[in-house]
């Protein structure tokens, strides 16, 4: 079963903490991202830099509105930095492409005119990555993994919020992209489903070693899912710290290491708040 597999993975990972880093896949240097509207100028992130190595499970953590989604959109090729550079495998990112599959934060990312199954099939077909019966099989198996086989033939407007997110996740995962960009994908899911999806993701990673950039606001999830965690400051987002978190699984939530890492991240995030509390 998948769950057991995930636990094994965590155990093995613990043994391999000394492995040498794989090559850099994505290099972000001094990136400032701004939104310009006729009335306002909003700086979303300010001079952010980090490297994502191949097979990283790179988590971005930061307070609401600090620019996590914006950063992910920029990596996806939907926004150009006003400062700095973003390179993927050495090439400047110039636009979106199916090598970087995104799961957006919003529910309305599904195409309302396609059934759940068609939605999953769509990117495979238009990108030419998978075809015909193979694509169909993959799509069905992805839907089975997110527990939506029963809903393959309904239209998205008939799904609940969490179900929509699950379709979007299935769609992105079925594509097996070079890098998977996920923006709070599990936020709308209940505890059980969320846990299943996390294990699913890790299980898949075990098989394929794809790279994933993952935005979350749960410290626990960050540690569970991530191998490396980037902590951003409040708005405008700047880099506060970058931490390792390899080797944790659902079984290790009670592990003292888990607690320690959790505490460290907590402190980075809450430092302003703590200061206030002390003062008051």
């Amino acid at each position, binding site marked *: 079963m998948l769950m057991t597999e995930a636990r094994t993975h965590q155990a093995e990972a613990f043994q391999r903490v000394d492995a040498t880093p794989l090559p850099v896949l994505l290099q972000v240097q001094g990136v400032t991202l701004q939104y310009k509207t006729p009335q306002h100028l909003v700086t979303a992130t300010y001079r952010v830099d980090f490297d994502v190595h191949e097979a990283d499970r790179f988590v971005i953590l930061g307070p609401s509105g600090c620019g996590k989604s914006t950063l992910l959109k920029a990596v996806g090729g939907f926004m150009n930095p006003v400062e700095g550079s973003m390179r993927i495998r050495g090439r400047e990112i110039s636009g*979106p492409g199916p090598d970087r599959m*995104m799961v957006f934060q919003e529910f309305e990312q599904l195409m*309302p005119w396609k059934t759940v199954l068609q939605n999953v099939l769509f990117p495979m077909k*238009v990108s030419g990555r998978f075809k015909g019966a193979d694509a169909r099989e993959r799509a069905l198996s992805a839907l089975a993994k997110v527990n939506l086989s029963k809903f393959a033939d309904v239209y998205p407007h008939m799904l609940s919020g969490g179900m929509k997110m699950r379709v979007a996740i299935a769609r992105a995962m079925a594509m097996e992209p070079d890098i998977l960009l996920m923006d709070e994908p599990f936020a709308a899911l209940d505890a059980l489903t969320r846990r299943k999806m996390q294990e699913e993701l890790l299980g898949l990673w075990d098989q394929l070693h794809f790279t994933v950039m993952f935005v979350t606001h749960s410290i626990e999830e960050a540690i569970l899912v991530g191998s490396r965690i980037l902590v951003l400051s409040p708005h405008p987002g700047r880099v506060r710290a970058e931490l390792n978190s390899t080797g944790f699984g659902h079984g290790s939530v009670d592990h003292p290491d888990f607690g320690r890492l959790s505490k460290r991240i907590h402190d980075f995030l809450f430092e302003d708040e703590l200061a206030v509390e002390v003062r008051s």
Partner: protein
Amino acid sequence: MATHAAPGLRPEYERQLTDASDVGEVQRPLSLSERLWGSTPFRRFVMLIVLAVVWECYARFLSNPLLFPTFSETLATFWRDLVDGPLISRTFTSLQVLVLGYGAGLALAAVFTTLAVSSRIGTDLLSTLTAMFNPLPAIALLPLALIWFGLGIPSLVFVIIHSVLWAVSLNTHSGFRSVPETLRMSGRNYGLSGIRYVMLILIPAAFPAILAGLKIGWAFAWRTLIAAELVFGVSSRSGGLGWYIFEARAELLTAQVFAGLLTVILIGLFVESVIFRAIEARTVQRWGMQR
């Protein structure tokens, strides 16, 4: 701190789940009138009857058959000209031209709006041309139509294109621009661009607006055709519904004029309640994009 009450405690409970795997549709009984009233065709039918009765009564009240014939008289004329008169062939002629012009207008609108979403200069071109040409009446095109196509069907098609193109482009482009950013990004994420992006993402996503544009375009194509058949087009061999109406009007055969208009109305109702309704049911309603 102020004192405050916590909600009172009550006993906890736990239940065994009932099986709900085969829950069918739970129906509250409806009365016959509720059921009838719930059916759109029935409501429409009642409405048409009411309109016909109003027409009949008002015409009788006016009693000026040369100006405004009764519904029954119009219907009789309609039937006569349908069974052994020229109505069917006239209608057919008009429909042919109409479909041709409408189709060509839509194709051009597709080209224009694709250009418009693909580049900034395309956007400007579309909005400038639309602002310039859309308000021009058909007669303004007469000189160019004469030079380019002479009289006859090509000129008719040309003016129909003029009446369809801008309205459909405007609506389609406005629809395209309203497509939510997230959906756009999903599409581009898969590497879609240019014509595929338009076809696979923008058109379905903007379908409600496009449908409204198609309806308006269709109606205006009719209007234009009927008026334009007099000016362009008719050589006395052929002649469509517009000509049928005009000839009757010039000869003061008012019931026949209204029979012609009734034909237009019936076709309009058919197209709306069969064709467009079916398209809506299969697309925007099924997709939950429109109630």
